């Protein structure tokens, strides 16, 4: 005798409260102090570029989901995160149309062509940024001084021009969200505390850069705090979709990012190390997963 009110489904019958939407919104929340710092230092340019990036990212996500005849899932927050990350990685003086182009490429070429959320091999925001760096190298490497619109031609990666304190608080020329180590660390700690960030990737990444900087006689603190490294190590390399799923794999991924970055920074002639280091390691993620399968319980145990 059946009771039609009863739901039949397999165990488990309860689920954790956390959802993919909540994870995305947690990343957004972690980026808020970074955006706030950027707006404090660079004023309207920060609002302009980040907002445009977000709107274009979410808009092109909706457009291409419609073209692909898929449900419009823009409320999952993933396009919002991509837009924010890309916007915050742009130099303050970049023309708006370049941000539009970068954000469109990030979502369409970086994500939707691979099948959308979860299916992209490369971090979408970095794909957008890589295309911009390759196409508009001078605009992408022209930074302005905080609180002014004065353009500084000097690359911020020259040691000795600025103090550690300035680097830490972010009163240096640089891309919008990448100057303030303080704001980035605040966001990172929040993500870690909420269980959204695996410490292995940023620790492996930054640790490798620190060790190699020391070995090659560079200014370690300067190497860690300058440029886009901290922002990338905390927010870009830790992208769940494009980083390994095994604990050992995440160490290898982080350390690999650090190695490639150091190679580019110390010996390369590329204008941009961070983007390419993470993208290159993204390409290795499936292989790393395959090589770092955890030992299954009871495997290799001798029968007593």
């Amino acid at each position, binding site marked *: 005798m059946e*009771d039609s009110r009863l739901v039949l489904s397999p165990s488990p019958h309860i689920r954790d409260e956390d959802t993919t939407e909540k994870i995305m919104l947690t990343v957004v929340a972690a980026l808020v102090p970074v955006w706030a710092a950027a707006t404090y230092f660079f004023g309207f340019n920060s609002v302009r570029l980040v907002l445009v990036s977000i709107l274009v990212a979410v808009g092109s996500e909706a457009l291409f989901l419609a073209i692909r005849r898929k449900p419009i899932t823009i409320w999952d927050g993933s396009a919002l995160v991509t837009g924010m990350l890309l916007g915050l990685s742009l130099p303050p003086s970049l023309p708006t149309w370049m941000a539009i182009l970068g954000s469109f490429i990030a979502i369409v070429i970086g994500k939707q062509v691979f099948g959308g*959320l979860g299916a992209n091999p490369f971090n979408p925001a970095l794909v957008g940024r890589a295309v911009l760096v390759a196409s508009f190298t001078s605009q992408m490497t022209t930074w302005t001084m905080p609180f002014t619109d004065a353009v500084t031609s000097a690359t911020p990666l020259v040691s000795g021009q600025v103090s550690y304190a300035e680097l830490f608080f972010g009163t240096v020329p640089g891309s919008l969200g990448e100057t303030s180590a303080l704001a980035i660390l605040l966001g990172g700690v929040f993500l870690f505390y909420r269980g959204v960030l695996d410490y292995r990737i940023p620790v492996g990444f930054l640790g490798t850069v620190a060790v190699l900087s020391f070995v090659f006689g560079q200014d370690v603190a300067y190497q860690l705090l300058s440029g886009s490294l901290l922002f990338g190590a905390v927010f870009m390399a830790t992208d769940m979709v494009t980083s390994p799923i095994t604990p050992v794999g995440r160490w290898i991924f982080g350390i690999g990012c650090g190695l490639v970055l150091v190679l580019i920074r110390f010996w390369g002639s590329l204008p941009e190390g961070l983007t390419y280091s993470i993208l290159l390691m993204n390409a290795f993620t499936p292989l790393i997963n395959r090589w770092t399968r955890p030992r*299954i319980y009871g495997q290799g145990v001798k029968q007593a």
Partner: protein
Amino acid sequence: MVKVKNFRGGVHPEYNKHITGDKPIKVLPAPNEVVIPLAQHAGAPAEPLVTKGDSVLVGQEIGRSAGTISAAVHASVSGTVVAVEPRQSINGREVLSVVIENDGQDAKVPMAGHPDPIQLSSGEIRQRIEAAGIVGLGGAAFPTAAKVNPPQGCKIEYLLINGSECEPYLTADQKLMEEYTEDVILGAKLLAKACGAEKIIIAVEANKPEALRKMRALAGSNAIEVVALVVKYPAGGEKQLIKAVLNREVPEHGLPAQCGVLVNNVGTAWAVAKACKHGQPLIERVITVTGDGIKEPANYLVRIGTPFRDIIDAAGGFAGEPGKVIAGGPMMGLAQFDLNVPIVKGVAGILVLSNKVTKEFDPMPCIKCARCVDVCPVYLMPVTIEKFAMNAMWDEAEDYGAMDCIECGCCTYICPSKRALLSWIRLAKTEIAELQRRQTS
């Protein structure tokens, strides 16, 4: 702060033990009719010894054990056999069952007790366990007589008594440890003697301080160690328990005996004590009736074969509209559609979730957050096996350890995209087992 025994992986669902944790065990009067399936255990179903019209007494054997991995089944009430026919069972299948109309007399078969059961020889204890039809009461219902008779060449060093009760909501084992402490400890000693274990360790999750205290008070003088376990699901999984308490691992696809350990549930120990002391077969057990969908949650001592409906009625009936009725706990329990199914030996509770909290989920794309990898207590990559299963890549699924899955459900529980990971892994296990069967035949 006493250090608790921990293991890697696992999840922290809301335990909800407060609902019934302070409710003493009530004896539920025997129902008018019991339905006793002949297959309540792992292994071969018992062979029926009665036919329609027979009179039976409480404790009378009505199903004979049918092989090494099988167990006898006994009448839990006295009265008349009204049917021996397939009846709906909790696993969704119809199982040959003996239906007995209760005459209300509770007339018992003569039961041969022993005034000081610890004097029994290990062979005699094993014999009594077998005669009493005892199976593991923790859920898997593996015949205990077969378990305490480890394969040749395996020396049992440790007997672990599992009092973790890591399934959320359930408090049956907790109340048993609190109220029948002496019998549980006697059962542990008898089991240790039966399997030749040198040492007994009773493991209880640290969220049951009263049970821990009582066990410690009675165990202290008897060279039995009582340890506190981390409060984490599945601390009571056999493999996780062995890892946490002894830092040993059961060999892959092997038995605990192969690493010198035997694990038995506290309920099983209690049943063994009763079989040896009073000669009483396994005809009753303690269960928890709980959840937001039940009016008066409680812990009951019930006869095996009591239909769910009688138990739910005794607990005041449904509170509001029921959404799910689950045999067991929320992590591994089985959802039911028919309330005439009976309580069997391996069911530790009935959980009723109201339709307000019963949710169905639409899976979203996997974002590779790897939480399923982090929580898997046998260190699998559930997301990878899921992907193989969805593409019918059974060899690859097997290579990634699908057959090692203990079906604890941690992966599905933790998934933020609400994917049915365990369901896909179960499918892979079924397909792989079928392929293996075909290869060997």
